[in-house]
């Protein structure tokens, strides 16, 4: 149980990371506020632009939540600090999982606060809030797993960091948030079955429109991605973790 005791210290460590807080919380708050002011009263195909943009914005920032777990695993297991960690009377693998768990919980917490802020202050319609937080949880978990998978797959951590940015920005680009993507069969397939942000938005939107079956299907696809990437991460992690 000593491993669980470390959670408190990891949480303290996290609370001092003000840059993470700025990037994963400060920036989305500013953007949600700006978009809510700018897009008020604009509707596109029957959907309020404020609702659509803000839901996508909050979900998009979940794609980068995995960087917390990624950085802590790297610092504690792949730098000189690993010798200190290994000399502790704890199960280091379990400690690694607590780091991942806390990074994911932190991302979920920030996401949930953003959902609350956008709902209470700007009246953004999330449909069912517990369901939206469940989808945010899936997104945060997937992001942590993918970031760790990247950490274990390449030798240089800086490359893993760049790849995690490619994952986040690539998903946003493919979902057509910056500009409309061409009507291509491959891009459509990726957005329908693989792209986490497109799946998460569809899940939230379907539940909002009382299309529960569709919502569960998209959440199930996200769950499937989590299972597949988790298995790959475990296999790679067992090889790479000291």
């Amino acid at each position, binding site marked *: 149980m000593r491993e669980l005791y470390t959670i408190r210290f990891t949480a303290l460590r996290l609370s001092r990371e003000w*840059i993470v807080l*700025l*990037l994963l919380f*400060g*920036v989305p708050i*500013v*953007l949600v506020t*700006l978009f809510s*002011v*700018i*897009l008020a009263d604009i509707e596109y195909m029957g959907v309020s632009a404020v609702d659509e943009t803000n839901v996508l914005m909050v979900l998009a920032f979940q794609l980068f939540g995995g960087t917390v777990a990624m950085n802590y695993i790297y610092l504690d297991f792949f730098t000189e600090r690993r010798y200190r960690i290994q000399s502790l009377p704890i199960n280091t693998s379990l400690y690694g999982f607590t780091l991942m768990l806390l990074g994911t919980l932190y991302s979920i917490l920030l996401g949930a606060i953003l959902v609350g802020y956008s709902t209470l202050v700007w009246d953004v319609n999330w449909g069912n809030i517990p369901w939206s937080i469940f989808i945010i949880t899936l997104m945060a978990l997937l992001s942590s797993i993918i970031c760790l998978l990247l950490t274990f797959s390449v030798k240089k951590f*800086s*490359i893993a960091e*760049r790849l995690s940015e490619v994952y986040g920005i690539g998903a946003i680009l493919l979902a057509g948030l*910056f*500009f*409309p993507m*061409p009507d291509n069969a491959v891009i459509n397939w990726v957005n329908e079955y693989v792209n986490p942000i497109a799946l998460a938005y569809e899940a939230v939107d379907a539940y909002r429109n009382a299309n529960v079956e569709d919502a569960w299907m998209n959440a199930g696809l996200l769950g499937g991605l989590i299972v597949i990437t988790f298995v790959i991460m475990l296999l790679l992690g067992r090889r790479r973790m000291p």
Partner: protein
Amino acid sequence: MTIFTFALKRIFRDKSNLASLTLFPIAAIFLPANDNWPLLPYGYQFFGVLILFVAIRLTGLLIDDRQKGVVKRLAAAPVTHFQYLFQNLLAFSVIVIAQCILVIAGGVMYGNELYEPLWLLVLFLVFSFTAIAFTLAWNTLYRNKETSFLIFMAVIMIIAMLGGLILPVDMLPDTLEKIAVIFPTYWLAEGIEWVVLGENIGDFLLINGVLLLYALLFLIIGSIRRIG
């Protein structure tokens, strides 16, 4: 020009730098256009954002030099601080100039509707100098390259949006529309609008003049901190 040569070598030695400096501008050429807004294809509308990213990556080398004590050692070398700064900035400028030429020439050859490609090139070049000066000044605030880069990423998103690169400035509320004028990105967006719709050359000169004034101001701020 030893420092200039080494600055170029340092930049191109980093493979991720090399990829971002070449692949992203090429990708920008092939991005689609929209019917109403933006007036130019997306790659050209967002090119200013890319220039800011490139500029912060390039000028980050100077923070590295401060961190590693290179600037202190330079004080003992037969090189003036002006030569060090000038040659580094020249190397960064050469890279962004090459990128701007690549994007405009590539766009013309690909058949993108750029209206006045030469004026657009001038605008992008002037904005590139402003971006380099801005990031130089920004970096003087930090001791760590990564911290500077991460916070600047957040700043880029906000100034790009408020400046009118992501959304038209007309959509902003009146107060924000007035505040937008203080961001260099606003003048870039105005410049792009001039390239597409403008007639009076005086307006274009004013836009570039403001950008150059910003460049001069940031250059002065950025070159004050010598050793740190």
